[in-house]
């Protein structure tokens, strides 16, 4: 208990160092571009593949489990859409990102810590936390909501593909379902959630990396911790945000 309070305190202090005005705006934007590429753009393929398949699977599962002939078939499309937009495209994708970019960030910053590269920056008078971490957080918070949109879109396409391929319901039933009782607000809700998750993943991973100790083993440990802690936080915040927003 005392340990975790201490961690929260240290996390807060680090974030205060991170959220300061960058020494040079131009350097910040350059890093922002680099991180956007590394954290977000490079994640599109894996997110895309997962979303296509999950979209297809959700459609099959829903169709197979709706044995009741009185429920119109178009509800399969409706349910798939709701599943995707409400939970899958934000929470599930965030968990995948926690593994992919969380471990990447923690090990990158952690190895810079143990090889004294972070000390070297501090010695130059550069705010290392600000230079290394702020661009990652900024890229992740501003752009991961678009990952959610991409995931949603591809999930629906995956569903459509399986509908056409297997004929489990007709394509027009599927499309009718997708359009049924459509609430744009849900998409905003999901994008907001994703921005919060993006912050959690990057800041938590950066935190564990920044305070890594104990050689390369320590770097490994800190990236494992980063994934575990950010995954749990994602689930907790999912609950909290759902209560707050919906």
């Amino acid at each position, binding site marked *: 208990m005392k340990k975790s309070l201490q961690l929260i305190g240290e996390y807060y202090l680090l974030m205060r160092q991170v959220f300061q005005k960058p*020494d*040079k705006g131009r*350097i910040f934007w350059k890093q922002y571009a680099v991180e956007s590429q590394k954290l977000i753009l490079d994640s599109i393929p894996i997110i895309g593949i997962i979303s296509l398949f999950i979209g297809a699977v959700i459609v099959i599962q829903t169709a197979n489990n709706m044995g009741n002939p009185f429920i119109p078939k178009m509800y399969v499309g409706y349910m798939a859409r709701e599943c995707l937009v409400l939970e899958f495209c934000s929470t599930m994708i965030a968990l995948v990102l926690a593994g992919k970019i969380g471990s990447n960030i923690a090990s990158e910053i952690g190895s*810079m810590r143990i*090889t*004294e*590269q972070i*000390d*070297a920056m*501090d*010695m*130059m*008078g*550069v*705010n290392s936390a600000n230079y290394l971490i702020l661009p990652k957080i900024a890229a992740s918070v501003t752009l991961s909501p678009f990952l959610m949109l991409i995931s949603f879109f591809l999930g629906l396409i995956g569903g459509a593909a399986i509908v056409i391929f297997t004929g489990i319901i007709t394509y027009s039933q599927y499309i009718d379902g997708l359009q049924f009782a459509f609430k744009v607000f849900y998409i905003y809700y999901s994008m907001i959630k994703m921005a919060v998750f993006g912050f959690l993943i990057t800041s938590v991973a950066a935190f564990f990396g920044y305070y890594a100790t104990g050689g390369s083993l320590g770097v490994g440990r800190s990236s494992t911790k980063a994934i575990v802690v950010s995954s749990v936080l994602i689930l907790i915040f999912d609950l909290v945000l759902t209560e707050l927003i919906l």
Partner: protein
Amino acid sequence: MIKANHLYKSFDGKPVLSDISIEYKPGECSLIIGASGSGKTVLLKTLVGLYKPDGGEIWYENKLLTALDSKSKKELHKEIGMLFQGSALFDFATVEENVMFPMNFFTDWSLEQKMERVNFCLKRVNLENVNKKMPSELSGGMQKRVGIARAIALNPKYLFCDEPNSGLDPSTSILIDNLIREITQEYGITTVINTHDMNSVLEIGDKVGFIYSGKLLWEGSSRDILKSECRELNDFVFASKMAKLLKSYV
């Protein structure tokens, strides 16, 4: 001038530095020698402000480091160049970008001006045609030299080197030592060097301090070191049988 009075530092209750007082002058190479694990790195990092001492004062001219707010500390750090034990080159950047790194932050120079300075610094450490290489493609000695080039990029008033020749062959070691001494004298830098290499001590030590489990046991010039009466120092200096034999002849 750098001056420290009665420094104390411990980690998790384990004392690493106790009651260390030093004074270093511009244009001189001051050495800190001692066995590995004796606290040299901790002393160096405490002197530059990477670690906060538990007690004591550190003065840079008339600035009290231990009392500076983070902004003034940052300003002071711009005047300090540091060479780390493992060189600590940024592995995401080329040699030239490493040396240019502090310039990007703290100067408004044009790219040509920066390149001119980068090439000057690299030439000063006898490195040419490596501008576009990544640190991992260089030998240990070359990495150290890039580290020095980066440390002097913005004309520091103070230079700290943590074991500049650990892991280097004797001739490369001497090359690096001489380089540091030349730079120190040429620009009137206050230089502090950690080492456990006796060759460096005799080669470049204007002033030598010996630390033994966190205490400063002996201080003097590199000439006096061979005549000292301090038992721990003698054990350190004349560690090998060969050296003991030589000493008995002198």
